[in-house]
C-alpha cells in the first residue's frame, strides 16, 4: 500500500516537472467531431427485448477556459438495426421475432462555469445546466408482427459536469456525467394498419450518461489538434402510462459505447 502511494506521488511529481503550464493557455474554443459506436439494449415491461449495434456521428462545440463561463452545443445522429423477441404470449406459443430500424437524434446547449487548478495536474471541473431536444425512432420491419413506427420525442432540461486532469505530457483523462429530465414526453405512433396516427403519453422518465474521455495530443508543442476516445454508458428510462386505446409499457434502454473524435482548438 505504501509502495502504491509512493508510486502515485512520484507519478504526479515527475508529471508536474514534465507538464508545462501551457494547459492553462489553451485556446478557449474546441470544435470536435467524430463517429460514435454503441450497443443498445431495449427492454419493455411486457417482456419484449431488443438489442443491436448503432453507429452515428457526434459533433460538439465548447467554449471552455479556466475561471470563465462555459458554453457548449452538441448534436448526435445515429442509426442502426435492432433485433429481438416480442413479449411472452399468454397461450405459451413461441415469442414473435422483432426487427426494427433505430434512429437517435439529439441537439443540446449548455451553460456553466469552469474551475481549474493552476498547477499540474491542472484538474478542471465544469458544472453546467442546459436544454435540449431529443428524438428516438424505432420503426419495426419484417419479420416483426406489427409494422409500426414509434417516435419518442421530447424536450429536456439537463445538468452535469465535465472534468479533466493532465496525467502525462500530452495525455488528459476525465469524467463527465449528465442527467436529463425530459418533460412533455410523447410517443407518436404511426403506420399502424388498424389505428390512425396518434400520440401516446409516457410516464415519468429520467436519463443519465457517464463518459470517460481520454484525450491525446501527439504533437505536444502544437495544440491545434487533439484526439479523443470516450467510452460511455447511458441509460434512458421511460415510465409506464395508461393510454387509450393502448398503454405505454415501462421501457428501459441501456447503451454501452464509445466515440472517437478529432478536437480542433482555436
Amino acid at each position, binding site marked *: 500500500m505504501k509502495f502504491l502511494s509512493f508510486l502515485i506521488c512520484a507519478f504526479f511529481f515527475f508529471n508536474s516537472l514534465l507538464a508545462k503550464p501551457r494547459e492553462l493557455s489553451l485556446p478557449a474554443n474546441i470544435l470536435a467531431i467524430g463517429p460514435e459506436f454503441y450497443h443498445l439494449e431495449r427492454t419493455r415491461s411486457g417482456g419484449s427485448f431488443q438489442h443491436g449495434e448503432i453507429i452515428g456521428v457526434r459533433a460538439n462545440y465548447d467554449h471552455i477556459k479556466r475561471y470563465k463561463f462555459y458554453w457548449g452545443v452538441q448534436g448526435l445522429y445515429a442509426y442502426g438495426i435492432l433485433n429481438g423477441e416480442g413479449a411472452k404470449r399468454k397461450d405459451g406459443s413461441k415469442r414473435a421475432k422483432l426487427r426494427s430500424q433505430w434512429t437517435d437524434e439529439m441537439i443540446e446547449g449548455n451553460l456553466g462555469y469552469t474551475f481549474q487548478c493552476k498547477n499540474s495536474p491542472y484538474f478542471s471541473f465544469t458544472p453546467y445546466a442546459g436544454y435540449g431536444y431529443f428524438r428516438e425512432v424505432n420503426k419495426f420491419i419484417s419479420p416483426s408482427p406489427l409494422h409500426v413506427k414509434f417516435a419518442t420525442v421530447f424536450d429536456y432540461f439537463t445538468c452535469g459536469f465535465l472534468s479533466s486532469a493532465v496525467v502525462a505530457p500530452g495525455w488528459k483523462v476525465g469524467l463527465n456525467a449528465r442527467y436529463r429530465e425530459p418533460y412533455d414526453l410523447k410517443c407518436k*405512433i404511426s403506420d399502424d394498419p388498424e389505428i390512425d396516427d396518434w400520440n401516446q403519453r409516457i410516464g415519468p422518465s429520467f436519463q443519465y450518461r457517464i463518459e470517460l474521455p481520454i484525450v491525446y495530443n501527439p504533437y505536444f508543442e502544437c495544440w491545434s489538434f487533439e484526439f479523443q476516445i470516450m467510452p460511455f454508458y447511458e441509460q434512458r428510462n421511460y415510465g409506464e402510462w395508461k393510454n387509450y386505446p393502448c398503454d405505454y409499457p415501462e421501457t428501459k434502454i441501456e447503451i454501452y459505447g464509445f466515440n472517437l473524435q478529432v478536437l480542433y482548438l482555436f
Partner: protein
Amino acid sequence: MLKEFFLVALISISMGGYAQEIVLENSSGDSYSVEIESEKSFSGVIESIKEYVAVVENSSDQSKEEAAADSNSFSMYVSDNGIKIKAVATYKGAPRDYDKPLTDSDRADIFFIVTSLANSNLIKLGTLKSSLENAGDRLDPVHTLQFLAYIFSQEELKAAMQNLQTRDFVWKKFIGGVANSLTEDDTCSNVFCHAQDFATKVGVSIDLISPKLKACQWEDLVKVLIKNIPRQGNTARYDQ
C-alpha cells in the same frame, strides 16, 4: 339544487370565566359572538353553535334560511392550537337526484376534469385551475355515483383514473372532493340505496362495493372500482 354554505367557528375558550365566548366567522368574513356556559358538554356546544348559526343566517338571507331548514348535517373539523378550536359547519339542501340523467355538458365537464387531472403536468394544471374549479361547480348537482358511473363506463376515463391514482398530490385533491360529495349524499341516505343499480351500470359485483359503501370508505371504493373494472380492447398492443 343542492344548497350549502360553510361557517367557520373560531372558538376562543376563556379558561377561568363562567361563560366562554365563541366567535363564529362565516365564509364572507362576518363575525358573530355567542356565549356558551362552561359546564356545557361538547355535543351541547355543537348544538348551541348550530342553533345560533340557523338563527343568524336565516335572518340575513332567505335562500340560506331555506337551506338551513333542510339542514341535515353538521360536521366539525377540530385542530387544537392552544386555546383555539376551528370548526366548519355545513348545511345542505335537497339531496342530489341519482336518477337525473347526465347532460352533454356534464359529460364534457367530467371528461375535462378527469383527463386533465390524470394527464396534465403540474404547470398546466396550475393554468387550468380556475377552469377545473368552474367545471367542478357545474357538476355540483350531479349525484356522485352518477359521476363515478360515467367515469367507469368510458374507456379513456378508465385509463385516466389508473394514471390519476399514481399521482399522489392530484389524487388526494380529487379523492378528497369525491369523498366530501359522497359524505354529503350519504348524510341524506342517498348512496347505499343506489348501490345495486350503480354496480350494474359499472359492471362490478355488488359484493365488492357494498362493504365500502356501508363503511363509508370512499377512497377504498374508488380504488376497488379502478382495480376491478376491466378495460376493453388490447391495451398491450404495442408491447413490442
